[in-house]
């Protein structure tokens, strides 16, 4: 088992197998086209009879921009620290409760930020403390987004780096040294991908910042549309925000590009975990327990203090809502992961620079406010008479492509091109390389990507709200209707069902990550 680590540096020598890639290129172009079409439509919409003055931010706009940047940076930093720490602790250390705490790390992601904000504002106004402003928004959004970093980094810690860690052990390097000198550098692409996702989520977040009264760019965009009736100006601003986020993510990629490390993962030995004791054990337990406890505890504490006026929809209604959410999320997760996999592969196999840029932008839909993306899909779907459900799944795919693609891209960075070269020299086509080499190595990121998309779709609101067909409420729609009407009591049961679906998905998928970590 103890094969030595191959954390190697290499220049970007791509394999150049002389194979037919026509079908792959066509499929990639199709997916990119579907992903980018809404943005092309939006651009056309925004520039029609537009003047430059529409994009002038003004004093309020600058404040919104500053707030957005502050939120992105603070949430990204906290998310990176907490997500990486918990990813490492639950993947490579051993302490009582570790397995359960690892599963529970998905809970905060499943909790819609606006629900937590609504509950906190409500509790605060009853007990006499004001829940308001960026000081509340930073911890709240950190809580609901750190799981991106956690899931992507823990997958990296438990999968690809195991043998390197084993080597560390045999050379007498302790847990901290192993983490700092080997595991962390190997996990950096995943951590970067997670932080990028949290940044995009923060940029498009609307419900929570509205309730907390934080003026952000996403609110400015909606204000343009709904307050001033300037829809084209709003779309213009949204596109500018998209470009800014693309630049940030692109810069992060570029900086990392120079320190690329490959590893032959997968066959790591089991029982690699360091036993924690004393205060270290306690600290590990606290760090991994507090975030899920908070995301579950906030709604539950509301439940406890408001037992006397909790209202609930009839059970058959709740069942229908749950099944609709489940159905949408399953369909969307599968389609999105398949599309993201296709794009991630194409970056490796079709080294055309234009195609590379196309696939990069195809994964940026997450940075656009959902309401604006919904508008784009209406502009496409209305004239073409597309079915609302089809539009909705298209929207999910476009919006959450980033969520599955970021992790896959990061994982591909681990697989050395020499593997592909070997396979092709033995006569494999790209499809065979994909099936026999990439997919087995990418099993973890594929599962994590699917889980992330699933959880995100279950709590997704703006697309579902504006694109769904008649009489087709989902859990998140119902939660929002009650919460926006300031009826927290009625919103709570469907909100807890959203959490339950997220936890169920986590329980279903995490064990297979665990198996992978143990060399299954």
């Amino acid at each position: 088992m103890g094969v030595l680590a191959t954390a190697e540096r290499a220049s970007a020598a791509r394999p150049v197998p002389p194979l037919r890639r026509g079908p792959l290129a066509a499929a990639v172009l199709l997916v990119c086209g579907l992903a980018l079409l809404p943005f092309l439509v939006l651009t056309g919409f925004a520039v029609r009879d537009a003047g430059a003055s529409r994009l002038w931010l003004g004093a309020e706009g600058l404040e919104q921009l500053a707030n957005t940047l502050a939120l992105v940076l603070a949430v990204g930093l906290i998310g990176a620290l907490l997500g990486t720490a918990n990813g490492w602790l639950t993947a490579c250390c051993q302490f009582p409760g570790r397995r359960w705490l690892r599963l529970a790390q998905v809970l905060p992601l499943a909790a819609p930020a606006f629900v937590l904000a609504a509950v906190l504002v409500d509790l605060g106004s009853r007990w006499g403390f004001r829940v308001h402003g960026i000081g509340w928004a930073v911890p709240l959004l950190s809580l609901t987004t750190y799981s991106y970093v956690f899931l992507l980094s823990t997958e990296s810690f438990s999968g690809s780096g195991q043998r390197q860690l084993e080597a560390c052990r045999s050379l007498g390097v302790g847990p901290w040294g192993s983490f700092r000198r080997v595991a962390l550098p190997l996990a950096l692409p995943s951590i970067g991908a997670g932080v990028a996702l949290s940044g995009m989520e923060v940029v498009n977040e609307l419900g929570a910042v509205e309730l907390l009264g934080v003026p952000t760019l996403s609110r400015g965009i909606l204000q343009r549309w709904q307050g001033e009736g300037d829809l084209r100006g709003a779309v213009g601003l949204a596109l500018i925000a998209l470009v800014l986020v693309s630049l940030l993510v692109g810069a992060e990629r570029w900086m990392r590009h120079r320190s690329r490390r490959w590893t032959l993962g997968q066959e790591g030995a089991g029982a690699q975990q360091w036993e924690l004791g004393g205060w270290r054990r306690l600290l590990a337990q606290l760090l991994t327990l507090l975030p899920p406890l908070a995301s579950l505890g906030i709604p539950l504490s509301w439940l406890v203090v408001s037992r006397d006026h909790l209202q609930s929809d009839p059970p058959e209604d709740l069942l229908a809502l749950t099944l609709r959410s489940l159905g949408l999320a399953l369909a969307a997760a599968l389609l999105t992961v398949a599309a993201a996999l296709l794009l991630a592969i194409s970056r490796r196999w079709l080294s055309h620079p234009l195609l590379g840029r196309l696939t990069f932008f195809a994964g940026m839909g997450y940075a656009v406010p959902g309401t604006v993306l919904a508008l784009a899909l209406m502009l496409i779907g209305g004239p073409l008479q597309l079915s609302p459900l089809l539009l909705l799944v298209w929207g999910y795919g476009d919006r959450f492509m980033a969520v599955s693609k970021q992790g896959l891209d990061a994982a591909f960075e681990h697989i050395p091109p020499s593997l592909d070269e070997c396979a092709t020299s033995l006569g494999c086509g790209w499809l065979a390389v994909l099936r026999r080499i990439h997919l087995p190595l990418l099993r973890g990121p594929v599962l994590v990507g699917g889980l992330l998309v699933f959880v995100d779709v279950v709590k997704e609101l703006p697309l579902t709200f504006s694109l769904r067909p008649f009489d087709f409420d989902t859990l998140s729609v119902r939660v929002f209707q009650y919460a926006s009407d300031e009826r927290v009591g009625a919103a709570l049961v469907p909100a807890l069902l959203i959490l339950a679906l997220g936890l169920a998905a986590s329980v279903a998928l995490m064990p297979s990550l665990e198996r992978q970590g143990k060399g299954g």
Partner: protein
Amino acid sequence: MPSSSLPLRRVWLPAAGSAALGAALLAFFGSGTQPAIGQSQDSRPAIAEAGTTIGVYSGRHYNTDKELYRQFTAKTGIKVNLLEAKDDALIERLKSEGKNSPADVLVLVDAARLDAATDQGVFQPSRSAALQRDVPANLRDSQGRWYGLTRRVRAVVVNPKLVNPTTIGTYADLAKPALKGKLCLRERKSPYNQSLVASQMILHGEATTRTWIRGMVANVSQPFFTSDTPLARAVARGECGVGVVNTYYVARMLSAEASAQDRQLAEQLKVIYVNPSHVNISGAGVTRHARNPQAAIKLIEFLASPTGGRGYAAANNEYPLKGFGDNPILKRFGTFKADGVSVEQIGSRSKAATLMMESNGWK
């Protein structure tokens, strides 16, 4: 890699299974009631009659509305397909669907949104003797494109321990220096506040309204609130002396659905109907490309009628179009004198009102 097929199967078999399950769930729970966006549901006859179906897009999302639609179906045999979403998104959806839209009726909340929808041409004019009779002239569009259904009043709430209720008789009193540090307001973004300011612009002119806004902003003690209920609670707890809210939020705090704590808090509040009071509405119109305008107008007539309207208003502790209704909680607040400003006019001034609020410090 001979062993590679094992993990493959482990991933892709469950994946295929879950896809099939997802599709099955969608087919089962998604089918039946929804036509494609823009697709006609079935060839409906031009005359409203039992057995037909109409599509309703609604910006109101009170679960209790559905009971009213059920009553309408029971009474007329006309089935109602419902889609509730945000007002602005509904307007855009109608526009993008154009003549293929499955919606016959659009229900919106607030004067400004009704005005925006009218401007963008998503309504068609309709005439109805019943609506002329049941909806007061200032609560409907002059060309019959929309009709008011319920009334909500923007009232002042006072904590009598901090502010003497008798000192406040008009909205203008909120700008008095005596209230410095005691006034709490909701954000500019709230359409209820935008319409309030628009109505003051119509009644008192721009200069007076600007001075009034500045006076109020100078009195504000806390960051602007993002919703009405926490604002009402802050007044009740004495964190603010006086605030401006829609009365149905206070009524809900007093109702049986509220917690004991909320009832206790609301008891501390004195609701003042200033003279005259600003009245906002929720309203509905027949969509421009309605396939079944006769059935659509029947629904609007039902919702505006004294019987149907009472239910629509009572569901959310709002006032019916005429009189003060028989809601025992609202009766506690007494009666109000409406300012009589035309809602159509308020809508057309709301953008100007928003800009005035922005340039005078209303966050």
